[in-house]
């Protein structure tokens, strides 16, 4: 590697930075004003790539391509406005996480819609007319199109910056970012402002996607990749800071370019392939930035947002009726193996449901009563699964040892990651936990010698007497029950009161002598250990584990389960996980478009039961009792 090639990679990295910036800037604008973390932003980008490629292929030549870029940006902007008006307007007063769930449902629906329209194959667009050549830079050929991207990024930054600083629209956006209710009380039509900001942000995503067509084919996989990249950029740059987003996009693109250009290097005699680091590089950057500057490079300390949601109801001990239902469930679980003699599949599904209940309950423990919205709970599930799997693989250990190792490894991971995470709150905490989960996932994927890489570990089977499925089911049921009851008991112990007090008001809790960070840290660790148990059981239930089973998707599944049940009820995660696991199992096998169906179900639930299933039932009961 020479200095010249390093410099060349650095220049080329700037082109990638521009693409990242467009998406992140839109996401940041939308978050700033509406306070909605729009997970579907990556889907808008993906739509941009498909629409632009389609237009460019249909109408050839410069007009088709460049006209298509502009038309695509406008169309995606319009589509964003429609989403805002039809869906988001109804949920601005819903709790933050519910909005997340709704936009996640959009991801599922848009992805399947794209599959239906464009099919599963990648769609390759034409190269940019007029910019097909390359120029000589540092003795290498740099595509002219990359030069164009390098220039247009800062140009868009400048335009956005001026628009925000100098126009009335910009002033309104900045004011609404701080206090949207007050802006409304001063006579500003917030609905219109929100719609236009959402449209502008979507337009930027569409533009980013359209410009990418000349470099890469449109693919159904881009939505989640782009959204996680964009999140990282926004968080590193500082929420709401457009300049910060550009800075962060440049840093991340450069770090990746650096990793690629170093390639395999030898450190202290050990060969290390840096290009493998690209998968984690951005998350490492984010973790470092969040630890050093918790609000991002150019972000400000988040003002305490005036929540538009109703205050949370306190937790109440289980009434007699609930205890009776609980006892009934225990009896039913004990009898299930008998029932399953004629239908063995019931046990397979039952184990899945139980494991998801345990996993979701452990996430709920820190999310609801702890107020820590972890986006990376799969990390501890994964550490548990790999803890058990590695022990079996390398030491031929039997299941009991594996099941002990699972929570221990998860606990250690949660103690380490949690120490950093509890120093943040809100979206920043969510993103840091996501980064840690991504790091765990990358280690599982990339450290092939230890973990078997993307093939994972095979042959993790339960030892006798649990090698019979009904026995394993009973073991799973017992451990799940134990875990759920333990977490529940903790919430009604002084520790649980302290955790809830810390969630409701950190200052007041500290003023009465509670070390909020410490309490939340311990809570985080306990939740991690319990998730580890679920992960360990999962490994033995499936007989194998692979990085796929612990990726972002699993973290999001857990979130959906908790939110589906209702975050402020203790039975919520149990019901949510059961419904979700059964739905996934039944819906998935019905149709090719199961994602869209799942998304539609989630949307219907969000709009009909804004407090989750259990929360919704509780409200219904309240209404019946107190007419």
């Amino acid at each position, binding site marked *: 590697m020479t200095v010249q090639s390093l410099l060349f990679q650095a220049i080329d990295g700037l082109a990638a930075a521009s693409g990242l910036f467009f998406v992140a800037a839109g996401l940041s604008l939308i978050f700033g004003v509406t306070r909605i973390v729009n997970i579907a932003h990556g889907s808008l980008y993906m739509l941009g790539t498909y629409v632009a490629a389609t237009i460019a292929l249909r109408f050839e030549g410069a007009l088709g391509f460049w006209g298509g870029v502009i038309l695509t940006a406008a169309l995606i902007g319009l589509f964003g406005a429609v989403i805002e008006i039809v869906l988001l307007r109804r949920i601005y*007063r819903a709790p933050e996480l519910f909005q997340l769930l709704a936009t996640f449902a959009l991801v599922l629906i848009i992805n399947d819609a794209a599959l239906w329209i464009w099919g599963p194959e990648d769609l390759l667009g034409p190269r940019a007319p007029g910019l097909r050549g390359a120029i000589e830079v540092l003795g290498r050929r740099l595509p002219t199109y990359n030069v164009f991207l390098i220039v247009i990024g800062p140009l868009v930054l400048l335009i956005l910056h001026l628009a925000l600083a100098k126009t*009335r629209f910009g*002033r*309104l956006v*900045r*004011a609404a*970012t*701080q*206090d949207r*209710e*007050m*802006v*409304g*009380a*001063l*006579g*500003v*039509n*917030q*609905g219109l402002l929100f719609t236009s900001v959402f449209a502008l942000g979507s337009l930027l995503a569409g533009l980013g996607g359209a410009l990418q067509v000349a470099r890469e084919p449109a693919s159904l996989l881009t939505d989640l990749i782009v959204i996680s990249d964009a999140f990282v950029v926004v968080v590193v740059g500082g929420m709401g800071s457009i300049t910060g987003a550009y800075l962060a996009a440049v840093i991340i693109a450069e770090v990746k370019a650096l990793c690629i250009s170093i390639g395999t290097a030898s450190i202290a005699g050990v060969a290390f392939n840096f290009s493998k680091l690209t998968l984690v590089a951005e998350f490492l950057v984010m973790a470092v930035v969040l630890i050093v500057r918790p609000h991002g490079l150019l972000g*400000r300390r988040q*003002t305490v947002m005036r929540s538009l949601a*109703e*205050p949370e*109801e306190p937790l109440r001990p289980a009434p007699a009726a609930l205890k009776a239902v609980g006892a009934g469930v225990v009896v039913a679980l004990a009898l299930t193996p008998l029932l399953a003699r004629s239908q063995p599949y019931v046990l397979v599904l039952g184990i899945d449901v139980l494991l998801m209940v345990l996993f979701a309950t452990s996430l709920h423990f820190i999310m609801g009563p702890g107020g820590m919205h972890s986006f990376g709970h799969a990390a501890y599930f994964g550490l548990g699964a790999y803890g058990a799997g590695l022990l079996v693989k390398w030491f031929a250990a039997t299941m009991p040892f594996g099941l002990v190792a699972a929570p221990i490894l998860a606990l250690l991971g949660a103690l380490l990651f949690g120490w950093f995470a509890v120093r943040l709150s809100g979206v920043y905490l969510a993103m840091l936990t996501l980064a840690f989960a991504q790091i765990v996932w990358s280690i599982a994927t990339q450290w092939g010698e230890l973990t078997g890489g993307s093939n994972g570990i095979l042959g993790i089977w339960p030892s006798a007497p649990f090698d019979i499925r009904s026995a394993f089911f009973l073991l799973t049921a017992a451990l799940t029950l134990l875990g759920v009851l333990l977490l529940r008991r903790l919430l009604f112990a002084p520790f649980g009161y302290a955790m809830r007090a810390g969630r409701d008001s950190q200052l007041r809790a500290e003023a009465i002598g509670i070390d909020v960070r410490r309490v939340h840290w311990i809570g985080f660790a306990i939740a991690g250990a319990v998730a580890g148990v679920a992960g360990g059981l999962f490994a033995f239930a499936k007989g194998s584990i692979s990085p796929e089973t612990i990726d972002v998707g699993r973290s999001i599944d857990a979130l959906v389960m908790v939110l589906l049940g209702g975050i402020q009820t203790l039975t919520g995660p149990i019901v949510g996980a059961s419904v979700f696991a059964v739905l996934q199992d039944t819906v998935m096998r019905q149709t090719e478009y199961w994602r869209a169906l799942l998304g539609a179900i989630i949307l219907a639930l969000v709009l009909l039961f804004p407090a989750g299933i259990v929360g919704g039932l509780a409200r219904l009961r309240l209404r019946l009792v107190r007419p």
Partner: protein
Amino acid sequence: MTGEPLLAVESLCAWYGGAQILFDVALSVGRGEVVALMGRNGAGKSTTMKTIMGLVGRRRGTVRFADRDISRLEPYRIARLGLGFTPEDRRIFADLTVLENLDIGRQPPRRFADGMPAPAWTPERLFALFPNLAERQHNLGGEMSGGEQQMLTVGRTLMGNPLAVLLDEPSEGVAPIIVEQMADTILKLKEQGLAILLSEQNIQFAELVCDRAYVLEKGHIRWQGAMAELLRNDDVQRTFLTM
């Protein structure tokens, strides 16, 4: 004052979550009238104002303003009819300059029902009223002292050229000199025909500017009458106002 009052509230109830905060509050303010809404902390003064402005989620009752029922309108529609609101905690946009804060409140000039133009404000006219703001017009809202923020929040509301203003505790936590300035300002606005509802704990301040008063306690109106009468009525003061 003849005819219908500019702002009339009847049987107003409001809830935060499951807890009812206001119980059948009724009050009215006419043109050129300054009316005090008095009561201790937590009596429901701020909630009354927020409910009138449409800022409280669950509410019931009627609010009429300038001959229109505004009880179901969104806050921005209420503001656009000419009802201004300055919140107790000021809610200045900390990252915007003083001038930008004023610009957010800007609305077109408007007239009273009888065709008389309401005072039309510009930043220059506001700076004449509050000279301190003029000196700091390019400073960020977050850099201002409490008193300056109080002036700014009043100025920002006036930029909407309102016919009536809900002033939530303008004398709270500011220096005596600013309190005087506030009193002068309120009297000037009154001269120009604005209707003002002023929430206050400080009876000395209310005495300076108010014509009538309502006394709130636990979300109920417990007393109403002329300001002079309230000053003489030690009984009401002791029961509902003094600490």
